[in-house]
């Protein structure tokens, strides 16, 4: 069981897994930052050879100020990317699956699927890179709903699918023994 809790967690509900996308999904941001971050240093290293009249005080001091402001906004860019990655979460508990979809800062969707409503679960490892790096997609088909619940680019998709199947079996057994599970909602994410 994962040692985390979330707002709206039911009494007796335990978090089994918290899944985030594989870090490979951040590759675009990582490469972008690695390419952009050294730009001011390169400019200050190479600039004096090409623009010697610009690289004198006080212009050089102004350029340093502009470079620092550039890093302030690069830092914001990095954090917006981190939030996009870190809050795109799937929380799997012994009762349900919560999908938190963070799209930029002010766009957030939370969906919920009861484990007992799962009808079909599929894991997919799409291609060579996914096989080598170890990530894939999991899709869940729920009863009575056409829309599929999808975990995209998650690490260890096969193992995760097995865990969900185990939790589903336990939930079904639990219902057979105790009847319908209690649904006490104390808020939400």
């Amino acid at each position: 069981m994962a040692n985390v809790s979330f707002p709206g967690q039911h009494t007796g509900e335990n978090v089994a897994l918290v899944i985030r996308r594989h870090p490979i999904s951040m590759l675009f941001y990582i490469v972008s930052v690695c390419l952009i971050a050294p730009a001011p240093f390169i400019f200050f290293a190479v600039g004096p050879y090409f623009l010697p009249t610009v690289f004198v005080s006080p212009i050089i001091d102004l350029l340093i100020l502009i470079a620092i402001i550039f890093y302030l906004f690069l830092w914001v860019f990095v954090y917006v990317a981190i939030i996009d990655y870190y809050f795109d979460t799937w929380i799997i508990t012994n009762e349900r699956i919560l999908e938190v979809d963070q799209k930029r800062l002010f766009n957030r969707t939370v969906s919920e699927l009861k484990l007992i409503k799962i009808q079909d679960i599929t894991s997919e490892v799409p291609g060579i890179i996914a096989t080598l790096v170890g990530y894939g997609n999991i899709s869940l088909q729920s009863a009575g709903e056409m829309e599929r619940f999808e975990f995209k680019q998650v690490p260890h998709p096969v193992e995760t699918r097995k865990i969900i199947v185990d939790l589903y079996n336990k939930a079904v057994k639990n219902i057979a023994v105790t009847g319908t599970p209690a649904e006490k909602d104390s808020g939400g994410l």
Partner: protein
Amino acid sequence: MTLYILILLIPLLIFLPIGAAIVYHLRKYGLEGDSSKKLATIFIIVSLAIIILAIAAYLRIDWTKFDTFTFTFSNAF
């Protein structure tokens, strides 16, 4: 001279609401037991450090010399 402060103020005024939104998200939507609060603290500390550096860089500039700035800059090209 006074208008030069806008070079620093405008970026800071753009940064502050975005920074506040980032900290708000990390503190409000993080799960109990994950690293979101640590991430928020790191964000605040590093942002403050960069802002202090920016203020120091601003204060270091001799703005009185900037009458010659345009002339020097245009001569460079």
